[in-house]
């Protein structure tokens, strides 16, 4: 067991905000830029430095410079061939050592499959407080401590959480709950690369392969998600919903009823026993809005529902509710959306051609 003595927090001993970025094949992922946006706000509020940490095989200098441009004061790039793909043991070991040596006050990670695995592993080792899947973060004026706000019980309540006596204060942050930080040319900062010693890289897990999801739009990445519910009646009708999704450039999700019937695959399930999504726009088609479904989509920015039952609970969380038969509504809506996009695109290209 690490550290048998309880760590007391000398207030000055822990300082700075760290964000744990993510990469795939050396390419920095969007969640990193979202975390920088969050971290920058917090660092400004408590007058601290923001460090972006990346762990991987190798990074191009431009990718690291870009993190500075987006708001980091410093970048710490931890590089080794063993770190090419996320495996919890070597990545956590490197980070635990770095956190113990440099003592950041706040450490943020993404509430992604990576961050939600890594953060609790690190928190256990460093005796850090950790709050999952936060949608808002703030600094408490009096104490300078981190306030973590997250939905609980399927989004039915919000909980405000603090970490009074432990450092670092850690949180995973829900993807897409903030806009990614934009690069500002001319910003400067320190870039440090680090080659971890061999003994930090030990792993009892080997990655033997990867099978990418067949569809191009993953639910997590999508700004717009169209979800098919049991109201579509049968598997073949998924194509009608897919056409709507295509007209919105959206990912196609499904309720559990649809997944259990084999009309769509599990990675597309939205809800309590599936994925939690926070797109800019959610469109539910023939979805009733059971509480377990709402648990996975309530925090979407905008919600549109199409259902022929005026009492369907989904309408209670919708901005717009089309009360009608989806088989009548979808063709018209899809056609009009295609036209609208077409016109918008044409207008754009005219503008671009203007001198």
């Amino acid at each position, binding site marked *: 067991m690490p550290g048998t003595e309880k760590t007391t927090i000398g207030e000055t001993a822990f300082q700075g905000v760290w964000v744990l970025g993510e990469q795939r094949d050396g390419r920095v992922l969007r969640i990193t830029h979202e975390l920088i946006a969050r971290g920058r706000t917090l660092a400004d509020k408590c007058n601290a430095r923001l460090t972006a940490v990346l762990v991987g095989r190798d990074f191009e200098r431009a990718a690291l410079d870009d993190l500075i441009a987006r708001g980091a004061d410093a970048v710490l790039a931890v590089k080794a061939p063993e770190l090419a793909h996320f495996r*919890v043991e070597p990545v956590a070991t490197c980070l635990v050592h770095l956190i113990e040596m440099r003592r950041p006050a706040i450490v943020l990670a993404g509430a992604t499959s990576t961050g939600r695995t890594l953060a609790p*592993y690190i928190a256990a080792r460093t005796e850090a*407080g950790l709050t999952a899947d936060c949608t808002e973060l703030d600094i408490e004026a009096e104490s300078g401590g981190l306030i973590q706000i997250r939905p609980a019980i399927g989004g039915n309540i919000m909980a405000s959480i603090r970490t009074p006596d432990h450092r670092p204060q850690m949180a995973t942050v829900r993807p897409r709950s903030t806009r990614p930080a934009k690069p500002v040319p001319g910003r400067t900062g320190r870039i440090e690369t680090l080659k971890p010693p061999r003994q930090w890289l030990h792993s009892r*897990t080997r990655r033997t392969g990867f*099978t990418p999801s067949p569809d191009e739009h993953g639910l997590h990445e999508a700004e717009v998600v169209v979800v098919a519910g049991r109201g579509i009646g049968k598997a073949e009708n998924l194509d009608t919903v897919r056409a709507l999704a295509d007209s919105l450039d959206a990912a196609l999700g499904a309720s559990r009823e649809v997944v259990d019937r084999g009309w769509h695959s*599990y990675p597309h399930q939205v809800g309590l026993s599936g994925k939690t999504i926070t797109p800019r726009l959610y469109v539910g088609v023939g979805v009733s809005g059971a509480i377990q479904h709402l648990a996975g989509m309530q925090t979407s920015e905008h919600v549109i529902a199409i259902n022929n039952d005026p009492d369907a609970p989904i309408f209670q969380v919708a*901005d717009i*509710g*089309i009360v009608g*038969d989806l088989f009548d509504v979808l063709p018209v809506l899809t056609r009009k959306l295609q036209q609208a996009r077409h016109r918008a695109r044409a207008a754009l290209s005219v503008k671009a051609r203007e001198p």
Partner: protein
Amino acid sequence: MRIAVLIKQVPESSSVRIDPETGTMVRSGVEAVVNPLDLYAIEVALMIRERNGGEIVALSMGPPAAESALREAVSMGIDAAVLAADRRFAGSDTWCTGYVLAAALRKLGPFDLILCGERATDGDTGQVGPGVAAFLDLPVATYVSNVPDFGPGLCRVDRLTEDGYEHLEVQLPAVLTVVKEAASPRLPTLRGKQRARNAEIAILRAEDLDVDLDRIGLKGSPTRVVRTFQPKVTRQCRRLPARDDAEIELAADQVIEFLRQRNLL
């Protein structure tokens, strides 16, 4: 082969009500069930036992009433059940929960495999599984959707990530947290229910475990919930009737206008 399954008792999700005044959960009269996502972990354990033989122990930390969740696990075919129940555990956050469960597993072990649900539907954190792995210094694979190959000394798993399935080889002993896709939980049999009724549920108290009393319960928890409140519901559903062609046309136009105003097109 010895397998531990960690199960939590949670309020049944559709019966959860929120007091509109205080914004807190109304606990009285709410039915308690096995965390639905833990049923998949139980089923994966049973499938591995069918192939490899061995013993499965279900472990829960919770109030004495959580015994009924463990009995449900027994009725599905789990061999033995242990409840870590002590007033001093109450109020534990995920750090303390992981700490206590790890201590209990050390006491009950050794185990070749520790299975968890993806997350508990009340706290919704998914932090306990990886935490237990870290406390026990074991490898962990999260979001496991399939265990195509198990033992000896090694298991192969598929791990569901945002953009696909990772294929991993994990040395045993290990911790796995599983998603729904991993299994379809069986229903309890009549014999299982009978066995469950008479099953002895061993109780572990704080002094039975090698834990530091300053590190457990509310007092030992690094995090504190300081306030709960109702989310701002700013959505006021604008209902658009779509009963005939004219209404449908109009509704579609209004949707497009809505999207255009919000820059969603």
